[in-house]
């Protein structure tokens, strides 16, 4: 069986300038979008909220996930928690500030009116979810705790539901720390969970609440790990550059790396444009594409090297064209085969695995494209500027090297 006629003679190189400029434009577009819109950083990188939910009947993780999504939270992470009889789940959702600015002001005035002169400090950070941090002086002697019930009543009187008021003594003995969590997130989810549990419509008895606890949860990959990861990728690219330089020629190396960078940006672009969650799985996809892209590029380079020896006398762009044509069937086949293995995932999976497969597909397509339309043009350009074979490029080239 043959899919590609065995002696294609497509002129790829003719369109190289168009292709390079087109790719450059796309990359620039993605980078601008990255800055302006940003990635949808998952809980792994940005932290989020963690809830503990206890149901009174048997429900599956899928049901819980659907309930959370119906309340408007995308792509939650749902885990069974404890033994099966507990019907409990641990749920993680992305960072969301549920408290609207109006509600925040309401809480502020409620706290100020309730505590009066006892208020020492008031802090609200929207990035931390819906927790308010208040410090009190602790009365005249610094040791009288504020009335948490009154505080709760005051805030609810201003129209904001309260999940909990937590009072702790300051470590230096002067005054108290009050942590107020409002129930923005909780109310929406609680309603959805009650429905799932079949207890909606029952009286609002705190004992029947499904959600037992909500906490802010920090990122898996803090700044330090993230930076280490980025350094790892950069070191990997440098090592690749060195190896290609050593095995082929210095003019080939930059092309390969530029193609790699291009591919990474395009896949990032997929995440920016689709606004799918960028988490540790996304990072694995990027790494896979790096490996795939360089593999592809090297195969083309190898053929070019072989033809440079075989086709002396032909000019450089022609050599490259011939090489690309010769490797075309192999390139399409390998991409095709890898794409085939992902098709199953695309059609039958959902959620993170689907994201994984989709991003990989994008990466494979761009990986193939970049070997032809990025790596080769860059190499040709470098050859024109600096090469030994510049007399082959057919351009004016550098008079000095032509004479050498």
């Amino acid at each position, binding site marked *: *069986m043959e899919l590609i006629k*065995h002696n294609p003679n497509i002129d790829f190189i003719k369109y190289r300038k168009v292709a390079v400029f087109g790719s450059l434009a796309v990359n620039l577009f993605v980078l601008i979008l990255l800055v302006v819109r940003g990635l949808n950083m998952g809980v792994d990188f940005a*932290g989020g909220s*963690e809830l503990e939910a206890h149901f009174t009947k048997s429900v*599956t*993780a899928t049901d819980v996930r659907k309930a959370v999504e119906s309340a408007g939270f995308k792509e939650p992470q749902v*885990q069974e*928690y*404890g*033994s099966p009889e507990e019907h*409990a789940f641990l749920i993680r959702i992305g960072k969301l500030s549920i408290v609207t600015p109006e509600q925040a002001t309401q809480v502020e005035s409620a706290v100020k009116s309730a505590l009066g002169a006892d208020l020492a400090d008031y802090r609200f950070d929207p990035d931390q979810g819906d927790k308010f941090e208040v410090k009190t002086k602790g009365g005249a002697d610094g040791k009288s705790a504020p009335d948490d019930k009154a505080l709760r009543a005051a805030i609810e009187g201003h129209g904001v539901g309260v999940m909990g008021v937590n009072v702790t003594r300051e*470590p230096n003995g*002067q005054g108290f720390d009050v942590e107020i969590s409002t129930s923005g997130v909780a109310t929406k989810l609680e309603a959805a969970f009650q429905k799932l549990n079949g207890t909606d419509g029952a009286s609002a008895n705190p004992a029947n609440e499904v959600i037992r606890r909500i*906490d802010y*949860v*920090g*990122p*898996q990959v*803090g700044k*330090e*790990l993230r930076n*280490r*990861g980025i*350094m*790892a990728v950069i*070191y*990997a690219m440098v*090592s*690749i550059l060195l*190896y290609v330089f050593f095995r082929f020629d210095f003019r080939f190396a930059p092309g390969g790396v530029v193609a790699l960078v291009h591919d990474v940006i395009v896949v990032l672009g997929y995440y920016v444009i689709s606004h799918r969650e960028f988490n*540790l*799985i996304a*990072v*694995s996809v990027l*790494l*896979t594409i790096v*490996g*795939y892209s360089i*593999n592809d590029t*090297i*195969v083309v380079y*190898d053929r070019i090297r*072989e033809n440079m020896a075989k086709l002396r006398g032909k000019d450089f762009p022609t050599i490259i064209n011939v090489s690309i044509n*010769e490797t075309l069937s*192999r390139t399409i*086949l*390998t991409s095709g*085969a890898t794409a*085939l*293995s*992902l*098709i*199953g*995932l695309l059609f*039958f*999976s959902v*959620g*993170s*695995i689907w994201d994984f497969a989709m991003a*990989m597909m994008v990466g494979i397509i761009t990986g193939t494209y970049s070997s032809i339309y990025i790596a080769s043009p860059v190499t040709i350009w470098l050859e024109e500027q600096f090469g030994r074979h510049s007399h082959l490029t057919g351009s004016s080239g550098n008079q000095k090297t032509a004479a050498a």
Partner: protein
Amino acid sequence: MDRAWWAKVLMIVGIAALAIWYLIPTYFYFKLPPDVRNDPEVLQKALPSWAPSAKHKLNLGLDLQGGIHLVMRVDVDKALRTKTETRTEQIKSTLKEKNIAGAEAKALPDDLRVQLTFANADSAKQAEKILSDYYQDMHVASGSDTSVLMAFNDQDIKRAKTDAVDQAVKTIRNRVDQFGVAEPEIAKRGADSISIELPGLKDPERVKDLIGTTAQLQFKIVDDDNAGAANLFSDVQLPPGTTLCARSNHCANAENVPYLQGPDRKALEQLTQGKAPEGDEIALEKDESPGQAPTYRTYLLKSKTEATGENLIDAHAALDQTGGGRPYVSFEWNPVGAQDFERLTENNIRHRMAIILDNAVMSAPVIQSKISAHGQITLGANKDYNTLLTEAQDLSLVLKSGALPAPVTIGEERTVGASLGEELISRGWKSCALGILLVVIFMALYYKMTGVIADLALVLNALLVLAVMALFNSTLSLPGIAGFVLTLGIAVDANVLINERIREETRAGRTPRGAVEQGYGRAFWTIFDAHVTSLIAGFVLRQYGTGPVRGFATTLIIGILASLFTSIVVTRVCVDYLLKNVFAKKISV
């Protein structure tokens, strides 16, 4: 077929058999029901006697199976109190350096303040200025002519709390990483808690101990010369079982300073409260003899901490060459620590040095001579070899990863389900299988006979990767699967390269044998270059990446090495055979 060919076949069959053999524990592991299979003993029992040990099995990451969920609370208040005490010592040295005479500093840990008294008003003023400059995170709370009260700024107290938890997260991550539980999930939760998820562990006791140990290592001098301590415990009411050993009551093992011995640790702690003379403190050492309940004894120590574990560079379990091969912990100082230690040992020859871990005396050897770079900690004298070895290893691990900034307590401990979701996983496996099947069929259709051979190589490749992972007890998680997919893609690519070459050569008019020779020959260097480049990327990622990135890199490296073997050697062996018999006239490619 010639001998070289048979040799290759034998080698391939041998390797394949070895791979299958090493996958046996994994097979049984997956056959067991999920709630018992993580127990290593249960697994070992389920294995036939000729199978390899149960520890050679493939692990699943947290995203693919469940595990243990621990929540630890960091005692930030204690961290702040310790900070106050350390700061007091620092203030003392600073004032000494600046020649402020007659200064006395006292830590008030409950209020997070430092009380300073001076000989005269001038010194007080000078000190105020100097300390305000030096210690930006403190301010003067109040003062009179000759006294100054320094307190920490509120802002900095808050930051210190957050820092303590962040530091604890880092240290715990270090320890879990070193322990080898692959790919845990560790994150800060709320203001002062840390949530830790570990895949698959059935009995987390050892890991909990590891995580929960504060691991504060201190070195103090035993105060053996304190003349005033002769009557140390003379007026103490001894509970039953507790004895006082002193020269005054002619105890057989009496030392210069009297000490108490007994089985009840709490009782001893209570008895010794406040009994230490000025500048000293009393600590306990645990003594365990096999088959008997542990006993404790007191030591009178000089309060000053001469050296701490902060400056340890390395610690590892070692065997005592002279003492019959008993395990102990050998540690090494960095230059600063070495200097401190040298000074300590030089000035205290023939005194006893107490090695204190988390406020308990581990041992108190006599300093024979000046020591600088290395030291050792002997563990409880009378336990059996294996217990000692595990203890030594765990202790080394914990010392190496650094001390926790504050004590941690385990708040919650539950099992959790897979983070990816059971349903997603089963779907994932099915679609993966479908994908691989599609590739296999495609290769067979497109390249016919050689395609089928390539498929065989692919299967062997997958087997090898899984077997090596099982051998090293590696963990497979979604990123690892991504690496696996990449490996299979590269492996397929290698065979496509070879087959395309063979086709080219056949078209050019070569005989089947010639085409095969040329095909493999020419393609080899292409495959080699491409594989090595990916391999380099894999090694770099493994070196500098953490967690999932590492998992990905490991699978990639193993896969590429296996592919170099299967795509080239294995397929060649098959093709050579077929050349003799089936392909003689025309090669099916």
